C-alpha cells in the first residue's frame, strides 16, 4: 500500500513536470492530475456533496465548501478536510469511509469512488479550480485575456502580398495571399484543371447539377477567362443556384419538416422557411439582413405585407430545431428549447459552442455561464412553444401572416358561416341520432302493421304523427265488420307479456275497437277507445297481460266490427312482465319508438345542411397563411443562472446580453422586448469579430473543400487555427464593406453579398487548380493546407441524386411548396403497428424532398446528408458499403440508368462510337479516352463501333433479345457507381 502511494505521488510529480512543458499548448487544465480530478473527483463532489457544501447550497452544512480548491483545503467546522498526499490523515477520506463522520449521509459511496478519492489525495489532491466562489456566479474566466485569442480580435484587413503577385500576372488578391504562402513554403502549385473538369466543377459548385453536353461543349471548345467569367455569372443568376446554396445554409439551420425527437410532429409550414432561404440566396439578400431576419424578423419594421410575411417566416430559423415536446416538466422543456436555440445561433453565426456554458463556465473558451444565461434571458422571453397538442405534449407557435383585407374579410365571413352551419348540423345530427335510436324497432317484441296479415282494404297513412315504422293504416271508416288486421307473434321466451296496441288518436276515431288476443290461456277480447290518446308514450295503449308460451304461436287481431269512427292500426307491442308483475325493461325503453315521418323529415334536414356545408367548403377562400415563426412572450425577463444547468436550482439573475468577449460597447436591451433585435444587430454588426469570418469561411470551404479554418463550426480554442489568417480577414473585411466602397487597404467591398464573395473565389487561380498529385508537395504538405492543388471533393447526396435525375432527363425543376401536405399532426405515430412515413417518389430536386426527422430519404442519409438535429457546416465523408449497395442495387439508380440509355439510344442513326463518347460526356462530363472506349465497346459487346445503333441492333451481336440500349443502361449504371462520378476532380 505504502509502495503504491509512493508510486502515485511520483505520478503526481511527473504530472507537474508536464504542466511546465506543455501548459502553453494545453492549458493548465490538461494535466493528468487535473484530468483525474475532473473525471473522478469533481463529478462526485457535484453529485453528492454540492447540495450541502457549495456556494449554491441552500444552507451550507458544517461551514464546509467543496466547490473550490481553497474551500476544500480550508475545511469546515470539523477542521481541515484534507492533507495533500496523506489520505490516512484526511478527514474527507475518513468521512467517505464512514469512519467517524459519515458522508454523504444518505448512503456510503461505492468502494471504487472512495479509493479514487484516496488516490487523489495521495496524488497531492491536484485541484485545477482556481476560482474563489461567491454567490453562485463563478468567475474564472478572464474576458480581457480571452480577447487576445485570434478569433475575438477585430478583423484586420491587410494588403495582399505583392512579391508573389509579380510571379503570376493578373491575379486576384486571393491568389496573392495563397501564392505568397506557397512561395514561402517552396511549393509549386498544380497546373490549372482542364476545361472539362472546370465546367463540371463550377456547375456542381454553383447549382449542384452537372453541365449538359451542350454546356460542356460551349466552354471546352473555346475556353477563355472571359467565357469562364460569363459562365460563372450565368450560373450565379440561375434559380438552381439558390437551391444548391440554400441547402448549404439549411444544413447549418438544422432544417427539417418534422420535429423528430420523442414526438415526431409535422412542421406543416417549415417549407416556407426553406423557400425563404432559397429565395434569399437567389436574390443575394445581404447576409447581415439575412441574419437579422432569421433572429428577429418578427420585430423588424416593414413596408409591405409581403415584407412582413418574409421577415416573420425567416424566424423559422429559431423554430425548426428538434424539441422533446412530450417532456412533462415544462420548465425543463423551455430551458431545453432555449438551449437548442443558443447552441444553434452560436454555432451557425459565430462558430462558437455555447452549450457547455449551460452547466459551467466554458472550459476552453472565454464564455462564462453568465454569458450563457444572458442569452438565455433573450430566448426565454421569446415565444417558441405555445399550448399543447394533447395532454403533456407541447406544440409550437403558429404565427398568422398578413393578408389582403378582402381575403381576411372573406375568410372571416367564411369561418363564421362555417361555424354556424357546423353548429347547426351538429345539433340536427344529434336530433337525428336520437330519433333513430328511439325508432329502433325491436322486431322480437314489436310487430308493425307492415308485417300484419290484412283482411279487407286498409289504407296506409302518415298524417298523424307518432307511429311505429313507416306508416299506420286505417279502415277508411268503411266496410265495417269486414276488415281485420292480424298480428302473429312467437314469444322469444315463455313469460307474461303486456300486450299493447299503437294507434294515432283523434276525435274521428272509433270508440270501441275490438282487439282479440290469442294467448296461452285462450282468447281474450278487449275494446279500446281510439278517440283518446294512447296513454303510454302517446303511442301505445295497454290491452292486457297474458301468459304466452314459447312453443305456441300467439296472435293479436284488430277488427272494425261494431265500430263507427276510423279504426287505426299501427303496431302491437309485447312488453315482458316478471313474476312480481313488473315490466322487465323500463318504461322508456319499452316505449322506444318514434314517428317515421319525423325521422324522414329530420334526415332531409341533415342532408340539406351537409349539402350546404359542402357547397360552402368548395367555395372557401384560401386558408389564412401561417408560419412556424417565433414571437415575443408578454412577460420579458432576465434569466436566473441554473446552477449546474439544473433548472430547479436557480441562482442569481443575469441581465440579458451577449458574449462579453466579443462585445466592446455597452449592451442596451429594450426592457419591453426579448432582446432578439439587439442580439441580431450585435451579430450582424460589421465589426463583430466572428460573424464575417465564420460565413466567409463557410463559403470558402464549400468551394475549396476545406475552410481556411478547417473546423468550420468551431472557431474556439479547440477549433483549428486559420491556415491563411490574412486571407480570411481580407475577405471578411471586404465582405462587410459596402459595395462600391473600399476597405482600409483599398480592396473593393462586397456589401455582405454572398454572390460577390463566391464570384471572387471561383475566379481565383486557387479555385481553378487541378487535383494533380505532386510527390514533393505532398511530402511537404500532406494535408494540402497551403492549397498547392485542388482538394478532390465528394458530391453531396443531393447532387448525386439530382445529377442522376438530370442526366436521365427526368429531373423536375419546379420549385417550392409543401412536402408534407396531408400529413397529420404526427408524421408518424409512436405505436408499434405504425408503418412509417412513406414519401411519394418524386423527381424534384432533393432540396424539396420531405425532410422528416427519423425518416430521412435513405438515398440522402447513405451519402452523408447533414443530420438535421445538429448544426452541420461540413458534412462527413464516409465510405460505407451501404453506399455501394445502394448504387449497385437500388431501383432508383437503375431506373435512371434505363432512362438515360433510352434517350442516348433514341437516335438510331448515330454510330456506336458516338454513343459511347456521348455516354461519357453525359455522365462524367468528359470524353472517353481511347482505352475507356475500348473497354466500353467490349462491355457493350460491340465489334464494329463504326456501325449505327440501328445496324448493331439488327445485327444482334449482343444477343438475340438484347438491344444496345439495355447494355448501355448497364454501362451508365456502372458509371453512376464509379468513384469519378461521386467526386469532383
Amino acid at each position, binding site marked *: 500500500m505504502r509502495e503504491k502511494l509512493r508510486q502515485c505521488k511520483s505520478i503526481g510529480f511527473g504530472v507537474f513536470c508536464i504542466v511546465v512543458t506543455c501548459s502553453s499548448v494545453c492549458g493548465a487544465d490538461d494535466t493528468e492530475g487535473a484530468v483525474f480530478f475532473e473525471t473522478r473527483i469533481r463529478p462526485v463532489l457535484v453529485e453528492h456533496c454540492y447540495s450541502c457544501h457549495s456556494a449554491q447550497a441552500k444552507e451550507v452544512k458544517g461551514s464546509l465548501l467543496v466547490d473550490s480548491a481553497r474551500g476544500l483545503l480550508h475545511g469546515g467546522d470539523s477542521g481541515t478536510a484534507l492533507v495533500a498526499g496523506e489520505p490516512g490523515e484526511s478527514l474527507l477520506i475518513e468521512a467517505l469511509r464512514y469512519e467517524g463522520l459519515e458522508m454523504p449521509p444518505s448512503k456510503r459511496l461505492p468502494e471504487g469512488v472512495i479509493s479514487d478519492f484516496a488516490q487523489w489525495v495521495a496524488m497531492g489532491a491536484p485541484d485545477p479550480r482556481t476560482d474563489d466562489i461567491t454567490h453562485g456566479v463563478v468567475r474564472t474566466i478572464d474576458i480581457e485575456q480571452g480577447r487576445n485569442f485570434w478569433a475575438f480580435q477585430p478583423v484586420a484587413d491587410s494588403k495582399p502580398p505583392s512579391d508573389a503577385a509579380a510571379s503570376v500576372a493578373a491575379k486576384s488578391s486571393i491568389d496573392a495571399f495563397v501564392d505568397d504562402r506557397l512561395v514561402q513554403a517552396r511549393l509549386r502549385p498544380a497546373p490549372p484543371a482542364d476545361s472539362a473538369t472546370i465546367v463540371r466543377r463550377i456547375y456542381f459548385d454553383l447549382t449542384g447539377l452537372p453541365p449538359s453536353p451542350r454546356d460542356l461543349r460551349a466552354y471546352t471548345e473555346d475556353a477563355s477567362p472571359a467565357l469562364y467569367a460569363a459562365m460563372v455569372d450565368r450560373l450565379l443568376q440561375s434559380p438552381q443556384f439558390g437551391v444548391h446554396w440554400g441547402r448549404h445554409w439549411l444544413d447549418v439551420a438544422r432544417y427539417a419538416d418534422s420535429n423528430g425527437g*420523442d414526438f415526431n410532429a409535422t412542421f406543416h409550414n417549415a417549407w416556407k422557411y426553406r423557400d425563404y432561404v432559397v429565395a434569399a440566396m437567389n436574390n443575394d439578400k445581404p447576409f447581415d439582413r439575412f441574419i437579422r431576419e432569421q433572429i428577429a424578423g418578427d420585430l423588424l419594421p416593414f413596408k409591405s405585407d409581403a415584407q412582413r410575411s418574409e421577415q416573420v417566416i425567416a424566424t423559422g430559423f429559431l423554430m425548426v430545431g428538434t424539441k422533446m415536446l412530450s417532456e412533462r416538466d415544462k420548465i425543463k422543456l423551455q430551458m431545453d428549447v432555449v438551449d437548442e436555440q443558443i447552441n444553434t445561433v452560436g454555432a451557425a453565426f459565430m462558430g462558437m459552442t455555447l452549450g457547455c456554458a449551460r452547466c459551467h463556465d466554458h472550459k476552453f473558451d472565454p464564455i462564462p455561464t453568465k454569458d450563457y444565461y444572458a442569452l438565455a434571458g433573450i430566448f426565454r422571453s421569446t415565444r417558441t412553444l405555445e399550448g399543447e397538442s394533447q395532454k403533456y405534449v407541447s406544440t409550437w407557435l403558429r404565427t398568422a401572416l398578413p393578408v389582403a383585407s378582402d381575403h381576411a374579410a372573406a375568410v372571416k365571413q367564411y369561418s363564421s358561416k362555417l361555424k354556424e352551419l357546423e353548429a347547426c348540423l351538429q345539433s340536427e345530427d344529434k336530433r337525428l341520432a336520437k330519433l333513430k335510436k328511439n325508432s329502433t324497432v325491436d322486431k322480437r317484441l314489436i310487430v308493425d302493421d307492415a308485417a300484419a296479415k290484412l283482411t279487407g282494404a286498409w289504407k296506409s297513412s302518415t298524417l298523424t304523427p307518432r307511429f311505429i315504422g313507416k306508416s299506420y293504416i286505417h279502415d277508411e271508416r268503411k266496410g265495417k265488420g269486414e276488415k281485420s288486421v292480424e298480428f302473429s307473434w312467437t314469444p322469444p321466451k315463455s313469460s307474461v307479456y303486456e300486450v299493447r296496441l299503437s294507434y294515432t288518436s283523434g276525435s274521428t276515431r272509433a270508440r270501441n275497437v275490438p282487439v282479440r288476443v290469442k294467448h296461452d290461456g285462450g282468447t281474450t277480447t278487449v275494446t279500446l277507445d281510439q278517440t283518446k290518446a294512447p296513454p303510454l308514450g302517446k303511442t301505445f295503449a295497454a290491452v292486457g297481460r297474458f301468459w304466452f308460451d314459447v312453443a305456441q304461436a300467439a296472435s293479436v287481431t284488430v277488427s272494425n266490427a261494431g265500430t263507427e269512427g276510423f279504426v287505426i292500426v299501427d303496431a302491437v307491442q309485447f312488453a315482458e312482465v316478471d313474476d312480481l308483475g313488473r315490466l322487465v325493461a323500463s318504461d322508456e325503453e319499452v316505449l322506444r319508438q318514434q314517428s317515421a315521418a319525423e325521422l324522414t323529415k329530420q334526415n332531409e334536414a341533415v342532408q340539406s345542411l351537409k349539402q350546404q356545408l359542402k357547397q360552402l367548403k368548395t367555395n372557401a377562400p384560401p386558408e389564412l397563411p401561417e408560419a412556424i415563426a417565433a414571437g415575443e412572450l408578454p412577460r420579458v425577463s432576465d434569466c436566473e443562472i441554473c446552477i449546474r444547468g439544473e433548472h430547479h436550482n436557480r441562482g442569481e439573475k443575469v441581465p440579458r446580453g451577449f458574449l462579453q468577449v466579443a462585445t466592446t460597447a455597452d449592451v442596451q436591451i429594450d426592457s419591453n422586448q426579448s432582446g432578439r433585435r439587439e442580439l441580431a444587430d450585435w451579430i450582424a454588426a460589421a465589426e463583430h469579430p466572428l460573424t464575417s469570418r465564420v460565413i466567409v469561411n463557410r463559403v470558402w470551404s464549400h468551394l475549396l473543400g476545406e475552410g481556411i479554418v478547417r473546423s468550420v463550426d468551431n472557431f474556439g480554442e479547440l477549433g483549428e487555427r486559420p491556415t491563411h489568417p490574412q486571407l480570411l480577414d481580407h475577405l471578411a473585411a471586404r465582405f462587410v464593406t459596402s459595395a462600391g466602397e473600399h476597405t482600409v487597404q483599398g480592396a473593393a467591398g462586397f456589401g455582405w453579398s454572398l454572390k460577390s464573395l463566391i464570384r471572387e473565389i471561383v475566379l481565383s487561380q486557387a479555385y481553378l487548380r487541378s487535383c494533380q498529385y505532386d510527390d514533393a508537395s505532398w511530402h511537404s504538405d500532406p494535408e494540402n493546407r497551403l492549397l498547392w492543388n485542388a482538394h478532390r471533393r465528394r458530391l453531396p447526396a443531393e447532387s448525386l441524386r439530382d445529377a442522376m435525375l438530370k442526366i436521365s432527363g427526368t429531373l423536375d425543376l419546379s420549385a417550392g411548396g409543401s412536402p408534407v401536405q396531408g400529413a397529420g399532426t404526427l408524421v408518424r405515430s*409512436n405505436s408499434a403497428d405504425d408503418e412509417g412515413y412513406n414519401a411519394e417518389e418524386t423527381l424534384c430536386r432533393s432540396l424539396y424532398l420531405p425532410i422528416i426527422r427519423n425518416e430521412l430519404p435513405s438515398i440522402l442519409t447513405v451519402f452523408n446528408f447533414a443530420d438535421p438535429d445538429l448544426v452541420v457546416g461540413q458534412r*462527413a465523408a464516409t465510405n460505407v458499403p451501404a453506399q455501394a449497395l445502394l448504387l449497385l442495387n437500388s431501383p432508383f439508380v437503375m431506373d435512371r440508368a434505363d432512362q438515360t440509355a433510352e434517350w442516348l439510344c433514341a437516335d438510331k442513326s448515330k454510330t456506336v462510337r458516338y454513343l459511347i463518347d456521348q455516354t461519357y460526356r453525359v455522365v462524367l462530363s468528359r470524353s472517353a479516352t481511347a482505352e475507356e472506349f475500348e473497354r466500353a465497346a467490349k462491355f457493350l459487346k460491340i465489334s464494329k463501333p463504326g456501325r449505327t445503333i440501328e445496324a448493331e441492333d439488327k445485327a444482334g451481336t449482343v444477343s438475340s433479345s438484347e438491344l444496345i440500349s439495355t447494355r448501355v443502361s448497364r454501362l451508365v449504371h456502372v458509371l453512376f457507381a464509379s468513384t469519378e462520378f461521386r467526386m469532383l476532380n
Partner: protein
Amino acid sequence: MSSRHQVSRRLALRRSAGSLAGITLGGMGMATSAEPAVGTQQLPHHMPRARRVIFLFMHGGPSQVDTFDYKPQLTADDGRKLPFPEASNIDAVPKLLKSPWRFRQHGESGGWVSELLPHMAKYIDDLCVIRSMYSRGQSHGQAVSMMHTGSDNLVRPSVGAWVSYGLGTENPDLPSFVSISPASGHGGPRNYGCAFLPTAHQATAIGSSGKLGEATIPHLGNDRLAADEQSEQLKLLKAINQDHLAKAERDSQIQGAIESLELAFRMQSAAPDILDLSREPDHLQHAYGIGKKETDNFGRQCLLARRLVEAGVRYVEVSTGNVWDQHSNLYNGHEKNSLATDQPVAALLADLKSRGMLDDTLVVWGGEFGRTPIVQGSNGRDHNPQGFTTVLAGGGIKGGIAYGNTDEYGYYAVEDRVHVHDLHATMLHQLGMDHTKLTCRYAGRDFRLTDVYGNVVHDIVS
C-alpha cells in the same frame, strides 16, 4: 476534406471519421484495418468479461411489480391510499393497485418471479434482477432516449454505437451493431444512431417497430440483374475506379470507396445466410416459439439475435415495439406481451448457454421505465422512472441474485439505487471498457456515454 492524405488526429476525430479503423466502412460498420479508433487506443481498459451484448428492449415499460419485484405489502394494501407522495406529472391516482398475478420463488436462489414469466423463471439462477433501477424522463421519449443514449434531451450516440466505437466488430463482413425491429417513434433512429461518432457505428436496422418482417438489409440484393450480369458490371466498375485512382496517384478517399465496394459485394453474399433462420434445426426454432402465433415474431427476432452475435456482431438490440404501455387494460396487455416474449427470451438464454456463449454474452432485459404501483383508471398503471427492474444475464454478471430494492410498494428505488448511467457504466465495464475513459471529442469537448455520471455496480459482477 483531406482524408486523402494523412490527417491530423484531431481532425480525424472530428470529421473524417470515415478513414480510421472501425470506422472505415461505417454504416455497415466494417473494420478492416487494425488501427484502433482514436480515443480508444488503450482498449480494452481491463480484462473484458463479455464480448458482446444482446439488449432485449421491452418498449413501453413493463411493470416491475407484476414481473420481478414482489411486493406483498402492495397486495395487502390494495385499494388503500399511497401513504407517501406520488411522482409529479402523472395521471395515476394515489390508490394502490395490487398485482393481479401470483408470485412464486424459483430455482435454487429462490428468486421471485410472477406467473407472467414462467419460462424466464426457469432461468432465475442465471439472472441478476436489478430491482432498484431509476431513470430520468416521465414520458417515453425522454426515458427511451435515456436508456439508449444516456441523455433524455440531447442528441447523443447510443450505447451500441459507443460499444462499436470502442471495440469494433468481430466480423469484417457484418455490421458491428444491429438493431432488430427498432421503434420508429420515441426518437426512432436516434436510439440506435451514432450522433457525432463516426457513421460506422450506427446500427444497421433489420425490421421495424417490433416487427421483423422480411428480415433484410436495404439493397442487399438485386432482383433485376442476374449474378453474372452484375459481376460483369463489377469488373468494369473496378477497372474504371482503378483508372481514377491511378490518375489521382494518391487518394485515400478513392481507395476507401473501392474497398467499401468490395466489402459491399462480400456482404451481399455473406449476410443473407446469417439472416436466414431456416438454417436452424426445427427443434430449436420450435424452442424459440417460431411457428406458434403468439411467439413467432419475437422468437424469430431472438433467434436472429443469436445468429448475429454468433457471427460476430458486437451489439444486438431486439425491440418488442411499444407494446408494454398499459395505462389501461393492464391484465390483458401484460398477459399478451409476456406470452409473446417470455418463451423466446428463455429459449435465447438456453441457446446461448448450450453453446457456451452466455459466459461472454451480456444479456440485458428491460424497458425504458417501470410502472406505478398506483392505479391509473381502473386497470392500468402509469409510467414510473422512479423505480423499476432491469434484468441482466451472462457476461460476467452474478446469476441468481436480486440487487437493490424499491420501497414496500415497489414505487421508488430506495436501496442500492442503480441509475441508467450506472447500468451503462456496468455494461461497458463488462466489455472491458472504463466508461470514464471511452470518450469522443466533439464540439469542443470530450463526450462520454455516461456524461459526468455513472458508477459501475461492482456488487453484481461475478
